[in-house]
């Protein structure tokens, strides 16, 4: 199990790439220190043995919430495209995308 508190500069840089954020070197340093502190504070749970404790994803226990397979009116395309930074032929326009979808 990875040691909780020692987040490295490289890890911060890697995480920034995953999160699609551009950081300056200075920012990487600052974040490394700040995130390190938060994770350091998290050491109090490191020793807790919770292996047999089930995780809680939803605080109120509901199950099988479904909706009927019935049509509901869609948005007007005007409304959809009104906020778009760039459109063409009723579609959202973006710069070239390199690479295939994963």
């Amino acid at each position, binding site marked *: 199990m990875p040691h909780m508190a020692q987040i490295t500069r490289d*890890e911060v840089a890697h995480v920034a790439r995953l*999160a699609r954020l*551009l950081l300056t070197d200075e920012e990487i340093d600052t974040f490394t220190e700040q*995130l390190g502190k938060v994770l350091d504070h998290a050491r109090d749970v490191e020793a807790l043995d919770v292996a047999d404790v089930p995780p809680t994803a939803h*605080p109120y226990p509901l199950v099988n919430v479904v909706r009927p397979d019935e049509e509901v009116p869609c948005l007007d395309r005007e409304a959809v495209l009104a906020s778009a930074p760039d459109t063409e032929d009723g579609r959202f326009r973006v710069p070239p995308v*390199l690479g295939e979808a994963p």
Partner: protein
Amino acid sequence: MTAPTGTALDIAASVRAGERPATDVVDEHLAAIEARESEIHAFNLVLAEEARHAALAIDRRVAAGEDPGPLAGVPVALKDNVCTEGIPTTCSSRILEGWRPPYAATVVERLAEAGAIVIGKTNLDEFAMGSSTENSAFGPTRNPHDTSRVPGGSSGGSAAAVAAGFAGLGLGSDTGGSIRQPAALCGVVGMKPTYGRVSRYGLVAFASSLDQIGPLSRTVADAAALYQAIAGHDPRDATSIPEPVADVSAGLAEGVAGMRVGVVTELCEAEGIQPDVIARVRQAIDALEGAGAKVEDVSVPAVVYGLTAYYLINPAEASSNLARYDGVRYGLRVDAPTTGEMYDRTRTAGFGAEVERRIMLGTYALSAGYYDAFYGKAQRVRTLIIRDFDAAYERFDVLIGPTAPSTAFPFGAKTADPLTMYLNDVCTIPSNLSGHPAISIPFGTGDDGLPVGVQVMAPALGEAAMFRAAAAVEAAAPGGEDDA
């Protein structure tokens, strides 16, 4: 802080009775805004025209003998992370500056059904991440009691608007205390419902398993009325509780004789709690005992892990919820030669430091190799906290403790180190993790003359008992309306 026009229930009663036109009510509140808004900056956007228009419609209904709704004519300050159709909803972020949603949140529809009038969209910490409203991209909101100090956060704008009399009611969102803590710092009532009790459809998501919309008001009865109007099942929210909403207003004045009240040891002894805050909490507890409640100390041991669990869960969910802000479909776009670069530049330009910090923390907590140690572990710790609360609620009807560790602090006092800011939430976070309802009631002032809030918590769907206890605390509060 004296409100210009009485409590929300007073306003609604007089409008419904035809004694006072809703247009007059709106004008009075707009005048109050005019007088002090430049000083306070509670709003990102004041909706003067829309509010007058809505007021006219209310007055017409009253004149026609139709029922205008239980909150007819009451101006509401709405947090700017709740979608309003055709009206900018920015989350106080550059990345959504000017964005007009093509749809309205469920709570907005319910406000309209109740006859309430949205008078403006209020300022918040960017994407609801913060405890002081200093993280807003559009400048902070100032505490009406002392404008050199923060109003709390993230619903600082709504809390300040209610405290300053700009609105009769406010709506905020609470993920780690973002309604209750600013309510305490601004000397107003602020309540977080049971998770799932109020629809999240239309609330811009921050941490999905923790977020809830809730009322801010000057009185407990007002909060109960607003809660009643917005609560209830919504088929558009799959986490919405199907059970019907109990009437929480009817039994408000019943008092607390025989009610079992637990004083949470770990909250009263939490890190950094000001002694004068604790003193007020003790005073409130004594008052409840005097009113016939059975008061005892209770330990909820896992509560001490709340901050840790919260600061792993909330950023993780937030990092995923905020991935959609990428310049493709709406909001800010910074042009670039490729889509990948556009994502990077747009998000970097659009998000502030705290948002970036949480996204980074959350991405890390979910990343390959770290999931079990961080996010996975936090979710199990969450279960421990729920179990300890459940055990406490076997013996007690409600629990009590402080809302915030301190009174309102000066701008810049806690921004140097993020952890210092996070500690503001130590008393409020546990009920977000457990999904239980909780309310902050103003109870006197600290040594610095600034408002102190006392927190009452209840088990899931225990709002009725919670409001009843809150009303009793309010009745015993020192000073009353003139305690400024």
